[in-house]
């Protein structure tokens, strides 16, 4: 059976303090109920990954790397590329994480990010065929939790889209179509073909209160979790309810309304940071100052 996710023990006093604040519409870190923490993106900071991004969401940090390689297509989609999302939530990021195969939580987060990207058709998979039916690009999106101060889902989502948007494919030449031989023209590269920018919003329900972007103390006392993903057209492109509590219909309506209100600004923020932030070793200069 799947083990329970370990929760840290939050003192009864601290819990009551948080609840008292919530009653006044306040949060322990001073935010409003539906404010995101500060979002900071350092894209393309890794040299050996074809795409990468370090995302800070408050004190939560996630590093996402994109690796591309050539692979056989799936038999039912012979002319489409393939992408795989994987999340590694290891002890680096939290005392609650363990070594070993991915926990059910890590698998859940990876699959939510995967579904949002897939439903939004963010990646133009049909432009990833190299030799139709024989060889296609395979894109591995690996999410590493670095510091879990809550809401790894949204941080992972931003990291995944930022890593894809900062990523590239190497230029290749087909040597022998029959035998499926190709050659990489090193140095030359072009962007990963993308057409949408899905984002997620994760809410925590704590007793009768809803908050957006919970930090890890809030996560420790939350009853349930709701993630809504929107594509660039502001259509809902993925939903995931998590944790062992429930939501009322009104909760979900409220969440939906907030999400629709905030989507454009978050999407702009991502695009702007990707445009203006330093890359490569210079990103590390910035990182050291953080």
């Amino acid at each position, binding site marked *: *059976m*799947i*083990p*329970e996710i370990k929760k840290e023990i939050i003192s009864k006093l601290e819990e009551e303090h948080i609840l008292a604040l919530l009653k006044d519409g306040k949060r322990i870190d001073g935010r409003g109920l539906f404010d995101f923490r500060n979002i900071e993106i350092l894209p393309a900071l890794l040299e050996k990954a074809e795409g990468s991004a370090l995302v800070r969401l408050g004190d939560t940090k996630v590093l996402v790397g994109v690796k591309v390689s050539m692979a056989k297509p799936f038999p039912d989609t012979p002319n489409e590329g393939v992408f795989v999302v994987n999340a590694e939530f290891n002890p680096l990021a939290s005392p609650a994480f363990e070594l070993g195969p*991915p926990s*059910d*939580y890590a*698998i*859940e987060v*990876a*699959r939510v990010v995967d*579904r949002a990207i*897939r*439903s*939004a058709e963010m990646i133009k998979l049909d432009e990833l065929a190299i030799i139709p039916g024989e060889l296609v690009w395979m894109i591995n999106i690996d999410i590493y939790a670095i510091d879990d101060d809550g809401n790894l889902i949204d941080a992972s989502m931003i990291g995944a889209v930022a890593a894809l948007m900062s990523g590239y494919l190497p230029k290749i030449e087909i040597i022998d179509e029959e035998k499926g031989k190709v050659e990489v023209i090193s140095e030359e590269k072009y962007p990963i073909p993308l057409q949408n920018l899905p984002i997620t919003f994760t809410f925590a329900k704590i007793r009768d209160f809803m908050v957006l972007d919970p930090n890890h103390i809030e996560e420790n006392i939350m009853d*349930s979790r*709701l993630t809504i993903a929107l*594509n660039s*057209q*502001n*259509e*809902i*492109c*993925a*939903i*995931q*309810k*998590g*944790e*062992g*509590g*429930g*939501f*009322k*219909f009104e909760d*979900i*309506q409220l969440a*939906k309304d907030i999400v*629709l209100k905030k989507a454009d600004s978050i999407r702009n923020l991502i695009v702007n940071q990707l445009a203006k932030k330093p890359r490569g070793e210079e990103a590390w200069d910035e990182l050291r100052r953080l």
Partner: protein
Amino acid sequence: MAIERNGVILIDEEGRRSDGRKWDELRPIHIKVGVLRRADGSALVEMGKTKVLASVYGPREIHPRHLALPDKAILRVAYRMATFSVTERKKPQPSRREIELSKVIKEALAPALILDEFPRTAIEVYALVLQADGGTRVASINAAALALADAGIPMKDLVTAIAVGRIGNYIVVDLNDLEDKYGDADMPIAMIPVTDEITLLQMDGTMTPEQFDKCLEAAKRAILEIYDLQKEALRYRYLQIKKELMEEQSK
């Protein structure tokens, strides 16, 4: 206007679905509670060709012991598909999908359970999909809730689940495999009918906010329909037990 996806007609010119149903029509549902001898509780749920068997054990001792909680029982859920439940044989080892669904099914059931009556124990649910034709997770929830009740685990109420979705502009209820694969959106939902709480909510594909609202409404209606069938199956089970007990006493 018919709606076709990948060469399959999902909605015909009269608005009928691939299996002839209307948009909000459920597949034939059969429910039987108490089908296994060895399990503490069990149920078989059939939603059309989707067939799921669930069993429950507990409250019982936990190994390894450090997983036990001092103030309540822990709930463990495993959702598995039989290797032969799908067209291509599934490997017996649990896939990432099965692991995720085990988790969300657990979290869909947990809010209905009164776990603090049995500290330091585990309540274990196992759902096996015998045949998959769409909606296996919601059928598993419907079966697991009944198996928990059959096992006598104290509950606020049952949990009831349904998948709704979108095909073009049509909202459809209780998706079959074709609709799940080729439709435009799929949204499984579970509720505790008596408290009106949503305990499972997932979605993939795309929906406008308006379509989403329609889906929620349609889901709620379907859930109440299924809830009645669940209660009826439970009542039948209790009558059966009562009969058996009376027969035994009269011996």
